[in-house]
């Protein structure tokens, strides 16, 4: 019968402190490769709608006329598919999750592109 077979473990538990993080005092550090919330560079977006068609949960809505891009952060599953299919590479993934909300509607985030000058100067209107 080995009494002290867990001795090392006991000593470690006594001296090292708790194995869990004291959240929310100590916030978690996410690594660089972690998948997190989606952000967009709205000035580069061409509103093709590819991201909203490919989204597995339908979290993205793209409206071409008022030039709006909307994401429902509570529907997003952080898969990163929209980032991959975007032809202009204007979507990016942060490495932390979106903050919590108390009302469901607060999770919907909308970005609108500033109106561009009209088509009198076509080379300038294109990026």
């Amino acid at each position, binding site marked *: 019968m080995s009494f002290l077979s867990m001795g090392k473990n006991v000593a470690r538990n006594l001296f090292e402190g708790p194995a869990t993080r004291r959240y929310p005092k100590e916030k978690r550090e996410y690594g660089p490769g972690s998948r997190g919330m989606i952000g967009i560079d709205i000035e580069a977006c061409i509103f093709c709608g590819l991201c*909203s*068609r490919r*989204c597995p949960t*339908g979290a993205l809505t793209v409206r071409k006329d008022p030039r709006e891009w909307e994401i429902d952060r509570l529907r997003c599953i952080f898969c990163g598919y929209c980032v991959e299919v975007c032809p202009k590479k204007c979507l990016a993934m942060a490495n932390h999750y979106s903050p919590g909300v108390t009302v469901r509607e607060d999770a919907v985030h909308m970005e609108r592109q500033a109106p561009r000058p009209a088509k009198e100067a076509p080379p300038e209107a294109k990026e």
Partner: protein
Amino acid sequence: MIEEQTTIAVEKDTLLGAVADFYSQGYRLVQICCTALGDVIEINYSFDRDYRFTNLRLTVRPGEEVQSVSIIYWCAFAYENEMKELFGVNIRNIAVDYRGHFYRTAVPTPFVASRKDAGKPADTD
């Protein structure tokens, strides 16, 4: 190609004979599944021994009676109850028959009922 997979077509009257052959040769029942293809239902019985995979395929019309194989392979009762409830395949003599209470669905035979709208364009809801 990962592995060779053979499929043998059977009829309703030769099904139990083929399954009994597999049982006596020591095959293991892997799974039973069915596919609703418009006006016929295709039932696949899969067997495996020493990593060699064989498949028996039976094609029936909806409502046609199929004999259960759970008298030979007792474990088939789970698959057959599921097929009966989700697809409406008429299987008789299942060893442990749940009589429609395996899944408790709101709509009877949900996997076949709405195959009519399989032709509609996909929506990203």
